[in-house]
């Protein structure tokens, strides 16, 4: 009888220890789980809302670049972890999601004439030199090619939500902005500024060979952060 009790006691202790051990193992769920839909729809005002900001300016846009990018995202669900000091990383079957979003954007370079003054003009006899302010670069528009967007969703996964799509598109936009320094847009902007201003100066009576359109300096990669305007 005593022996049976002893065995039962030992079994009980072992079970208890296993339970404690299991509880100490941390399990992290999928952080991407979408929250359950709420019933906010009733509270939303369906009248379109508009906020505008009007600003006076004097900007001469001289160069326009049309760029194209295909944003891709491979959203494979992975089971990662570590058990007994052994790390593992497994792809969950039938849980793949893939999306390709074609996108077009317009990037323009401009010269801000709002601070233009006598300091920007140098005269020497019949010759005139106009020293232009630094060119600035801005993404003026972007368009998602909704018609040609492709997506594949595995059997066990939910479709891409509107919030996820917006997030990928914003990341694509940032990637385009980051690639601006490789496009050579300031050189084009500088060359084109002369094409706009020289005919105007000729009408003012200056001979073409006497007109010089110059910039403050040649721009290096270090200047890019100051030249690119993220939000216009």
């Amino acid at each position, binding site marked *: 009888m005593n*022996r049976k009790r002893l065995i039962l006691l*030992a079994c009980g*202790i072992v079970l208890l*220890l296993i339970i404690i*051990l299991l509880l100490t193992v*941390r399990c992290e769920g999928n952080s*991407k789980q979408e929250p359950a839909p709420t019933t*906010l*729809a009733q509270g939303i005002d*369906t009248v*379109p809302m*508009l906020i*505008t*900001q*009007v*600003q006076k*300016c004097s*900007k*001469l*846009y*001289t*160069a*326009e*670049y049309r760029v*194209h*990018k295909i*944003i*891709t995202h491979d959203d*494979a669900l*992975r089971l990662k*972890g570590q058990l*007994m000091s052994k790390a593992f990383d497994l792809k*969950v079957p039938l849980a793949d*999601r893939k999306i390709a979003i074609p*996108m077009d954007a317009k990037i*323009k370079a401009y010269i801000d004439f*709002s601070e233009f003054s006598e300091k920007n*003009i140098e005269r020497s006899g019949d010759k005139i030199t106009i020293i232009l302010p630094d060119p600035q670069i801005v993404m*003026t*528009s*972007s*368009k*998602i090619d*909704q*018609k040609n*967007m492709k997506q594949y969703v595995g059997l066990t996964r939910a479709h891409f939500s*509107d919030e996820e*799509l*917006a997030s*990928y*598109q914003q990341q694509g*936009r940032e*990637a385009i902005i980051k690639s601006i320094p490789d*496009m050579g847009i300031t050189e*084009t902007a500088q060359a*084109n500024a002369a094409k706009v201003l020289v*005919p*105007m100066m000729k*009408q003012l009576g200056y001979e073409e060979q006497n007109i010089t359109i110059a910039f403050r300096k040649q721009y290096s990669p270090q200047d890019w952060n100051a030249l690119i305007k993220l939000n*216009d």
Partner: protein
Amino acid sequence: MANKIKIIIAAAILIVIIAGFFWLKSATKDNYISLGSSEAIDPTPTQIQAIKDIGEWEFLSVSAEEMVDTVRKGFFKDDELVRIYYGTLRLGIDMKQLAPDAITVNGDSLQMTLPKVGLLDKDFIDEAKTKSFYESGKWSNKDREALYQKAYRQMILHCLTKENLEAAQTNGEAQMQHMMQQLGYKNVTIRIEK
């Protein structure tokens, strides 16, 4: 004697179990399991499709933020999609349309006729900047395109107003006058085509 042996055996088992527990605890200290996926997009190239010489002189910038929605009536409940679009309408003149005889100089007097003020670029919505505000139900790309077109029409309606065009024209005249005065002309007359 038999009882003593039993007690010793029980104590030994207990010690082994406790030692095993601590060993297991230390061995599983760094255990974790996570189920998830990457949020970041894949690196893909950005291709330049066209480079264009332009001469757009902007005198008024109208930045708009438009919240548009679409509702689909359902049997039990309605589905709804609400998005916020951002755009900037640029009003000014196209210098490529400047006539060859647009400027007349007579001593220190200057007369200048500039082309008509209008919307410089029909592409003004930055769709990639769009924020998703609310979504219930499943929506297609066609629905999103329709929302974009709705936001486009609303921005034109609200921003491309007579008042804004007049403000752009007035500022254009002032800016050009200032620039010509800096070039040394005392009497400057600027006229913008209507």
